[in-house]
C-alpha cells in the first residue's frame, strides 16, 4: 500500500482553468503538507494542516486553496491557473508539526500551457 498517494501524477491544462490535486495518507499521521518544487528544484512549503486545522499558510496566491475533509486527506485546489504555476507539487505527512520524518507522495507534475 502506498503511504502517501497523490492524484493525478501528471496534469496538463490551459491557462485560466481550475484544477484540483488530491492527496491521501494511510499512515495515521496528524499533519499533512503541500510543497511546490519549481524547475530549479527548490522545495518550498505552501500549506500545512494538523488534524484538519490550517497551521502553515505561506505566501501563496489566493488562487491556491487547500481543503482537508479529514486528517487523512489534504486536497489542493487551484483557480485561474497561470503559466508560473507549472511545477511539481508534493503532498507529505508527518506524525508531528515540523515535517521531520515526513513521508512524501510521488508528486504531481502540473504543466500550464
Amino acid at each position, binding site marked *: 500500500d502506498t503511504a*502517501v498517494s497523490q492524484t493525478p501524477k501528471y496534469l496538463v491544462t490551459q491557462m485560466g482553468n481550475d484544477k484540483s490535486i488530491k492527496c491521501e495518507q494511510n499512515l495515521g499521521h496528524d499533519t499533512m503538507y503541500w*510543497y511546490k518544487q519549481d524547475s530549479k*528544484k*527548490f*522545495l*518550498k*512549503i505552501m500549506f*500545512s494542516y494538523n488534524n484538519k486545522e490550517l*497551521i*502553515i499558510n505561506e505566501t501563496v496566491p489566493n488562487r491556491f486553496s487547500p481543503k482537508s475533509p479529514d486528517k487523512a486527506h489534504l486536497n489542493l485546489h487551484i483557480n485561474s491557473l497561470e503559466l508560473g504555476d507549472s511545477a511539481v507539487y*508534493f503532498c*507529505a505527512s508527518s*506524525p*508531528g*508539526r*515540523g*515535517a*521531520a*520524518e*515526513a*513521508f*512524501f*507522495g*510521488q*508528486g504531481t507534475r502540473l504543466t500550464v500551457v
Partner: protein
Amino acid sequence: LAKTTQPISMDSYEGQEVNITCSHNNIATNDYITWYQQFPSQGPRFIIQGYKTKVTNEVASLFIPADRKSSTLSLPRVSLSDTAVYYCLVGVYNTNAGKSTFGDGTTLTVKP
C-alpha cells in the same frame, strides 16, 4: 526560521565515503536537523535526523558539533544508486510551534 546552506553539487566515485555539510547558523534550541534524499521524479525520502553529537542508522551517519551551527551527512561507500539530491532540513519536531524549511539541496553524482 533557520536558513540552511549546502554545496550545490558534489562528485564522488563508487566505494568512497561522501560527506555533505550543511550550515545553519541561526538554528534554534528546539530545532532538529533532518536530511532527505530525492531521486528524479520522486518525492523526498527521509534519511536521518539528529539533535546533537552523532546519529547513525543503516543508511548514513549524521555528525553535529556542540554549537549545532552545522551538520555533516556521511554516506559510507557510496554506489551509483546514491546519485540524488540531498536536502538539509532544520525545524521543530512534534511541537505546536514552528515549521521546517528545506535547504536548496546538494546534487551528489556518483561515478563508476
